[in-house]
């Protein structure tokens, strides 16, 4: 990937971070930590990788994304608003009674391909979409993003087995490996490690990357697309709260909103980063 594109994606990701923070601070609640850890991946998907049509969100030939960790709606809504699926102004109504932007991701929102929220179900839904593409002999690709805590759910491994069995090479699963879940470190609560070997043993192609490095993210998507006869699992090493120093690697920021002072500090930090990227 050329440097200009990479730079542009980093800039966009910073705007998505601001969108996610705006949503959460307006709502006074929401899952910011895990949203910031997947922001770079989501930005790479929607601004580089996926075939989507903002004017026709239900276009049958589109690539699909299932955000299996559906509590990270601030990031998905943030990226969809940035892309233009709906007005950015709506983000300030996140989680409000008259808003279509609920706490967890919903299919009724333009650009969203599957309702999620109950952990462990999204990879199966993505398997269903990938199977349907095969039945219809169409070439869209399906992406699913899961948390590393989420893969403690047994259904994830049922889904992994079925994707390997059906050789779904149009399916890419991304594990947001930020190492934290609500109750603490995943290694303390219930270790899912080794993650790559588990997917490998279910007959997946596996790639381990730095989930905040745009070049590595895009390169992994390219490798996945070239891999035939197997689904690909990208284990993305990430930092919960990435981009806001006081939120980074702190489990307490899993599901809490910043107050106004913290919000302003976070915005300043991201804006400073934006200046740095722009040079």
């Amino acid at each position, binding site marked *: 990937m050329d440097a200009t594109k990479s730079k542009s994606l980093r800039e966009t990701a910073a705007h998505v971070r601001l969108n996610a923070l705006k949503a959460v601070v307006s709502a006074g609640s929401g899952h910011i930590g895990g949203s910031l850890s997947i922001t770079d991946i989501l930005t790479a998907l929607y601004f580089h990788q996926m075939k989507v049509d903002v004017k026709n969100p239900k276009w049958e030939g589109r690539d699909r994304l299932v955000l299996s960790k559906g509590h990270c709606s601030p990031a998905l809504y943030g990226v969809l608003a940035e892309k233009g699926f709906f007005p950015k102004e709506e983000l300030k109504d996140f989680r409000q009674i008259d808003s279509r932007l609920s706490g967890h991701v919903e299919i009724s929102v333009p650009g969203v391909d599957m309702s999620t929220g109950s952990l462990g179900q999204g990879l199966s839904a993505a398997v269903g979409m990938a199977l349907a593409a095969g039945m219809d002999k169409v070439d869209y690709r399906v992406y699913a993003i899961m948390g590393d805590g989420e893969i403690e759910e047994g259904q994830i491994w049922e889904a992994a*087995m079925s994707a390997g069995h059906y050789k779904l090479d149009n399916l890419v699963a991304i594990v947001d490996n930020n190492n934290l879940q609500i109750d603490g470190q995943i290694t303390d609560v219930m270790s899912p490690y080794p993650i790559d070997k588990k997917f490998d043993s279910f007959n997946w192609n596996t790639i381990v990357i730095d989930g905040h490095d745009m070049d590595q993210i895009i390169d992994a998507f390219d490798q996945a697309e070239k891999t035939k006869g197997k689904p690909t699992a990208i284990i993305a090493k990430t930092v919960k709260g990435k981009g806001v120093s006081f939120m980074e690697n702190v489990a307490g920021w899993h599901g809490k909103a910043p107050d106004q002072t913290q919000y302003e500090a976070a915005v300043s930090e991201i804006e400073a980063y934006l200046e740095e990227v722009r040079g």
Partner: protein
Amino acid sequence: MAEQYATRLAYGDALAEYGSKEDVVVLDADLACCTMSGNFADKYPERFRNIGIAEANMMSIAAGIATTGKNVFASSFAMFAAGRAWEQVRNSIGYPRLNVKVVGTHSGVSVGEDGATHQALEDIAIMRAIPGMLVVSPSDAIETKAAVKALMDYEGPAYLRVGRIPADIINDTPDYKFELFKGYEMREGNDAAILATGLMVQEALKAHDILKAQGINARIIDIHTIKPLDEEIVLKAAKETGAIITVEEHNILGGLGGAVAELLSEKCPTRLLRIGMKDEFGKSGKPQDLFKKFGLNADNISQQVITFINK
């Protein structure tokens, strides 16, 4: 003796018979040979996928397939389709209102010798509790085929409940007509009204004859669509007979009896007797012996009706 034809077999046959439409996709969880969805798989292998023994995965896969505009039938034993995968059905299918038909075969005690772990007696209640979920429980093979055909034309989540055992064909009449959402009056009568569902409709018909011999005219209504309940036919029966009996191969809590009790208590308080499993588990045994043991055969039903209306 009437011709015997299991409703699960009718399900598989109907999928094969009416499943030519390209949007129909069928999934099973390693029970295609028993739910009879295998009959569809033999004819349309390109639109059938076996998901293995993983019902939760199957229901969420069904949801994912449905998002692409397909009409998905996902079958397993009722215990697992409705029971094990309940939360997947609720959140992946019900909440996004996806076009998935959850099909539970081997419902009720008539599973027989396999015993209590495989006899779903709660599935109507838990499926009915999901907002927007249609619940259909046909009485014989003819009605099952009609229901499958109707569900192929119905857009939205639904639960179809069928049984394991070969059962009498009771709807081979020239004027039989299946309408989703509508109860079906099979026998006239104004002394009491028996509302039955699934295989219990057959027992109710036999009970009708026993009662008639004793001078009691019991109206028999087949409630194949339990949700939404045909309020009109139930309220009419309540007003005209003053004595309602529900019969189901299911816990009397939350199923047909529960649904009728909810309706009557709000709109037309009427004496009500709920016949079914009395908050208990089933057990191993021959289906007919189990019906007898749990008060679900025609003799038991007619006796309970007599006691009830003479109170």
